[in-house]
């Protein structure tokens, strides 16, 4: 009996977590008139969370794909901005995290502490000075203006340091004794073991850069270079009709990475290799 209550409670919690996503996907099949009627709050009566579309229609998806070609163009802008950043961040962070976790050198913890503080800095602080720096490096109006700051964010380092820490020192000492260089240790021992940590970092870093809004607005002049996320926020307050369809399409790449690595993400921070 106790087991059933536990399962019901579990289902309830999962429902709370999944409800907005399911609601969003359900709404993306509604007709845009039903959406705008649902989102206008001035008519006084209370909204109920019905997810059943009155008239199942792919009208929203049709609108998004065929009536607004700039959606697709901006999709590729997002891809150009996000993929190099994620690859760069994974590479740079794994190297640095290995050093922070396993190698001894002076000021290690102080430097890591500084990294964390810089990581938590609000964006507006670094926006204007970065504008000056990028201007001098003549990178304004160029996708690198977002890729480089994204690649060198300290988020990955602090994430991977945690998962590298769980690798027992003994295996490294053993390799060290039979003369392997640190680089060989890094590539032979460390990388395979933190594969799941890398997947988690890829997912989280991808989501961060996929939703980037402030930087492109400042660093890019012409709006043809804007990524998809800016268009999403514009759609948010202009035409409600296609907001959900755009949301679903916007989410699919992130979902792909998520489904690819969701089993790994569970193990990313534990040392027991299941």
């Amino acid at each position, binding site marked *: 009996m106790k087991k059933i209550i536990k399962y019901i409670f579990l289902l309830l919690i999962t429902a709370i977590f999944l409800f907005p996503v399911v609601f969003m996907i359900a709404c993306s099949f509604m007709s845009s008139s039903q959406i705008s009627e649902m989102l206008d709050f001035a008519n006084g009566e209370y909204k109920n969370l019905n997810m059943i579309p009155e008239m199942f229609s792919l009208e929203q998806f049709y609108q998004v*794909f*065929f009536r607004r*070609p700039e959606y*697709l163009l901006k*999709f590729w802008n997002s891809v150009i901005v996000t993929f190099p950043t994620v690859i760069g961040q994974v590479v740079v962070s794994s190297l640095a995290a290995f050093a922070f976790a396993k190698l001894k050198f002076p000021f290690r913890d102080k430097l890591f502490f500084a990294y964390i503080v810089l990581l938590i800095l609000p964006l507006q602080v670094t926006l204007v000075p970065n504008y000056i720096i990028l201007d001098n490096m003549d990178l304004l109006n160029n996708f690198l203006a977002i890729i480089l700051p994204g690649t060198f964010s300290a988020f990955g380092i602090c994430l991977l340091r945690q998962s590298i820490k769980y690798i027992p020192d003994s295996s490294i000492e053993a390799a060290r004794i039979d003369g392997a260089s640190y680089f060989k240790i890094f590539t032979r021992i460390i990388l395979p073991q933190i594969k799941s940590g890398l997947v988690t970092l890829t997912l989280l870093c991808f989501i961060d850069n996929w939703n980037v809004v402030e930087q492109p607005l400042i660093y890019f002049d012409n709006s043809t270079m804007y990524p998809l996320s800016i268009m999403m926020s514009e759609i948010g307050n202009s035409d409600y009709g296609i907001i959900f369809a755009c949301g679903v399409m916007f989410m699919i*790449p992130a979902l*792909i990475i998520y*489904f*690819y690595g969701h089993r790994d993400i569970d193990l990313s921070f534990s040392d027991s290799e299941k």
Partner: protein
Amino acid sequence: MKQDKFKRIVIKFGIVFFIVMLFLTYFSKTIDNLLLPKVKISDVMTGSLSEYPDTMHTHYLLPLSSVISSEEVYVINTLENGDITVSSVSVNICGSDDLYYEVTSDFLFSDMQVVYMTSKEISDGDRVYIEEGE
């Protein structure tokens, strides 16, 4: 085992998704136009069939097939966001021969274009795709 099979499916789905997006980006405009009704248009010509035209109001010559349900004609107008739509204009016919109708109408102007052939049923305000050439 089960885990790897699922991963391979996800990767395949990912690659397919990106290829579909690429395909859509390239073809979205053409697909959109394919779905629209294709129409042929001709300019509105002023003139009259009878020798002594009455000068009270201007007479227009419209192709026979453009007049639908005996007093309605579809005229092209382009909205500011570039979409091409049709709107119906009422005309009164005052003569015809084997090629043209002679009509008068206070909504018709000589710089308009009238639809005389359409691939699908169109109604007022629909978006259309203009096919070049006779």
